């Protein structure tokens, strides 16, 4: 057990020394890995931010009811009564006079509305149902649409649903891209470690002649791969932080044009930890492949 710990410590310190001994190689490999890691991570962060943007918009979908132009007071009364039932969370009545005033005030259409001889807008209700699922919403909308005096219903959640669907595709894309880049990462690590294994062929050969086990020979390279992966992960963090800094001002400008105060959200500590752990693991796996191949070849030669 103590011998095992000693071997681990020895392997770790010698790997660190070797990384430090070739700073340019180490740095370039870390950068290559960092760029590879940062691409799926950037996409992931972008989706997270878009998702949040979607979440800031009315979370509860609304149904707009437009009444027919020839609606009778009795029908209006019935509709109002229906909207007081339990499956409706809130309902707001917008009389057509109010709608016209708001329209001319808010969107600078006063010139146009002033020229109208009569109000073309219908009376309307904005209804927020209790139910949250898209199916239930559609059912309520359909039912309200059949009430006498209702000309049209409009389900406002549709575009959010579409956005969510697009985001779901994006999330699948993140996983696909992440998987592909993990393979690329393993290849980068494997190549980097293979070069180091080959440069230490003599040492490996001599060590085996004087009683080194495969595990002993493999260990420092595995540490090397893992550390290289970790450095790659940190480099990716640097790349993303830089991108975030560069994007901050344009995003603030864009969101101010929309009259909101949207800001890019950085990854949370869990996400950072997971990415660093995965980078370390892929670096380690790449090193394993490289050493196993080389050991196999040298043992054939002896």
């Amino acid at each position, binding site marked *: 057990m103590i*011998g095992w710990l*000693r071997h681990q410590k020895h392997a770790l310190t010698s790997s660190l020394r070797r990384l430090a001994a070739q700073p340019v190689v180490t740095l370039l490999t870390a950068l290559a890995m960092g760029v590879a890691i940062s691409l799926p991570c950037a996409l992931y962060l972008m989706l997270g931010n878009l998702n949040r943007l979607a979440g800031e918009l009315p979370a509860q979908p609304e149904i707009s009811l437009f009444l027919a132009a020839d609606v009778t007071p009795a029908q209006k009364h019935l509709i109002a009564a229906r909207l007081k039932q339990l499956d409706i969370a809130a309902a707001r009545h917008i009389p057509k006079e109010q709608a016209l005033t708001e329209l001319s005030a808010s969107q600078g259409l006063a010139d146009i509305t002033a020229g109208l001889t009569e109000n073309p807008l219908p009376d309307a209700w904005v209804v927020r149902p209790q139910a949250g699922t898209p199916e239930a919403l559609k059912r309520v909308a359909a039912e309200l649409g059949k009430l006498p005096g209702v000309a049209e219903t409009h389900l406002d959640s549709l575009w959010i649903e579409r956005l969510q669907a697009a985001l779901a595709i994006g999330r699948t894309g993140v996983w696909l891209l992440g998987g592909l880049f993990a393979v690329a990462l393993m290849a980068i690590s494997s190549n980097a470690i293979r070069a180091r294994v080959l440069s230490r062929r003599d*040492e490996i050969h*001599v*060590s085996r002649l004087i*009683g080194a086990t*495969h595990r*002993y020979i493999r260990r420092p390279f595995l540490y090397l791969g893992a550390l290289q992966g970790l450095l790659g992960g940190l480099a990716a963090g640097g790349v993303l932080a830089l991108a975030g800094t560069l994007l901050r001002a344009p995003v603030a400008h864009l969101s101010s044009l929309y009259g909101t105060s949207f800001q890019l959200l950085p990854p949370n500590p869990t996400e950072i930890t997971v990415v660093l752990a995965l980078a370390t693991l892929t670096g380690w796996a790449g090193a394993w492949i490289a050493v196993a191949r080389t050991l196999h070849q040298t043992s054939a030669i002896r």
Partner: protein
Amino acid sequence: MISFSQVTKRYPGGHEALTGANLLIEKGELVFLTGHSGAGKSTLLKLIAAIERPTSGVVSVNGQNISRLPQRAVPYLRRNIGLVFQDHKLLFDRNVIENVVLPLDIAGFDRRESLKRARAVIDKVGLLNREKSNPVSLSGGEQQRLCIARALVSRPALLLADEPTGNLDAGYAADIMAMFRDFHQVGTTLVIATHDDRAITALGGRTLHLDHGKIEEVAA
């Protein structure tokens, strides 16, 4: 300690380095292997250290059948064998003491204890003042002594040396042979492949002559 029974070693390509060789070496013996180059001396040593496996026959070291030894057990066998190479096989990316300490690192010894033992054995081969030098800066004789120090640091019961004085002038060669005599006197089993007849007469011991893959005992 070492026994060969009807051992044949044929290399890919058909060259037969040993043919039906029989051999018994007792614990504590000092044995010289002679014969012209290509007679099978190196092959015989490689078979003992499980660097090569016999094509047929049984090689047994310390009661272990080398031909049947699983690959993962080989490192542990080698830790009990000191190997001295004609080309030294030193590592030039580290200094003298780091070269000597390598077998102890591999065996998982405490670092401080390892360094102490390495220094003692470096002293024994007369390189203590070169402890921090790179092996590149050593002469051929010094490099050979360093190789011997590395072979001895784990205190093996068996020392195999392949042409240890092959590249050295007479003075150095005598030094090294004297060193081997000392180890023999403390009970180490030594098998030395050489064609240095002076060394053999100086040290005495048993001599085996190899010729075209056959072993003959040479009367002292």
